[in-house]
């Protein structure tokens, strides 16, 4: 027991893997290629991080390396989803949770803006109807009529 004594506070399996494990470095390369593609051709890329065989601590190291950029958004649909721009513009971390707060998907998106942040056409049509109804109700209120719907 020599080298390992001073590291005993760390978890046993992580102290041997101080650097990136073999799965993380290629991933970073892939991100950088994808960003190049986005800049040159406008083609976006999504990487499913749950398909990467991470070793202990790899994920934390990756997130740490990518850092935090200017944009952070939270969506509330079928549980929480956080969208975070990393310190590299155009590289986003999209983290999906279910209503029980368990992760159901985790992705890196290399795109100008993640699709999920855009208002969706179907939702906009629905909103159009809804807005029309609201306007109708307000109109009736102004006209002194009693509101028909809540």
């Amino acid at each position, binding site marked *: 027991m020599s080298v*390992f004594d001073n590291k005993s506070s760390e978890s046993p*399996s992580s102290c041997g893997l101080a650097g990136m494990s073999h799965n993380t470095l290629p991933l970073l390369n892939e991100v950088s290629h994808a960003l190049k593609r986005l800049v040159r051709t406008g083609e976006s890329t999504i990487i499913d991080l749950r*398909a990467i065989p991470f070793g202990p601590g790899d994920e934390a190291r990756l997130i740490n390396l990518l850092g935090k950029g200017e944009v952070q958004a939270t969506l509330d649909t079928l549980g929480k989803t956080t969208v975070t721009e990393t310190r590299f513009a155009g590289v986003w971390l999209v983290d999906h949770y279910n209503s029980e707060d368990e992760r159901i998907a985790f992705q890196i998106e290399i795109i100008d803006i993640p699709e999920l942040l855009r208002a969706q056409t179907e939702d906009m049509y629905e909103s159009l109807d809804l807005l029309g109804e609201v306007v109708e109700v307000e109109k009736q209120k102004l006209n002194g009529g009693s509101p028909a719907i809540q």
Partner: protein
Amino acid sequence: MAEKNTLGESLRRHGVSRRGFLKFCTATASLMALPPTMVPAIAEALEKAKRPSVIWLSFQECTGCTESLTRSHSPSVESLIFDHISLDYHHTLQAAAGEAAEAAREAAMHENKGKYILVVDGSIPLGDPGYSTIAGISNLEMLKETAKDAAAIVAVGTCAAFGGLPQANPNPTGAVSVSDIIKDKPIINVSGCPPIPTVITGVLAHFLTFGSIPDLDQYNRPKVFYGQSIHDRCYRRPFYDKGKFAETFDDEGAKAGWCLYKLGCKGPMTYNACATAKWNQGTSWPVESGHGCLGCSEPRFWDAGGFYNALSVPISDNSQTVAFAAAAGLALGAAAAGLNYKNKDEATKAHGTVTIDDLEKSS
């Protein structure tokens, strides 16, 4: 029972937005281990997906597979799927029992003839039908009867897929797998002891989404989950390649996270998704927690050598064989030497002296 409306419709009825639906599709793609580029196709398919009926039969098993399934870790995705799947018969999970349960099974079979999915866990005893029965019906009979009108069969767990633990030497019940009995239906083997929960639901989700069975490997296992060996996806692999091994479970190599090959890891011959899908809600997996792979998703893993012996080590104990063989070799060698000495001796005795004259005479 199978519903007429599609998944898309029922989600919308539940007030799920398009964003929510996209998120659902993303999670489903991830669950099925399909690339994110498949999300639009999944969305389109799920819009139209009809609610299938599922009949789940449990034979010679330990309920570990059902335990695994009910602990799959993304309830909202899965509950959406399972709300949508009609699990018409599962004798561990359903409230009804005995004849009422059998009636439900028969009703589901008739109503969805040719369209339901049959899920089986556990092996089937051929030794004596009395070894395992449900409501007095033998496993063999029930499997044949229920399989007849199924669209596809999913054999969940190594027992149903390959025979598993009940089949371990000397196989007292004469246990066999589903594919040993049913030859005329598509069978998807979801092996593992137990299989990874998300793999079970991923396979069911695939069927629900696309209405077809996924790409299968030589053992009829879905390639997306069983296409690569544990060894090839293992984060400890660089240590294997560099020749750095843990020699015991608590030496410095073990603490440094080196390869577990010498401690009996069967990762090199095992095909499963543990290294990526992981266990316990994605927390860790056996090799990550410091124990070698047992090879649980492979046929005969129980009889394929000691769990703590390196994979290359012979299955039978050879040290004695070698010692006996060496002794026998020595004895035979001594006998041969004795014979040789005798020959030599005789040759010497038979030796006559030849003179120059003799040689000249004969030439």
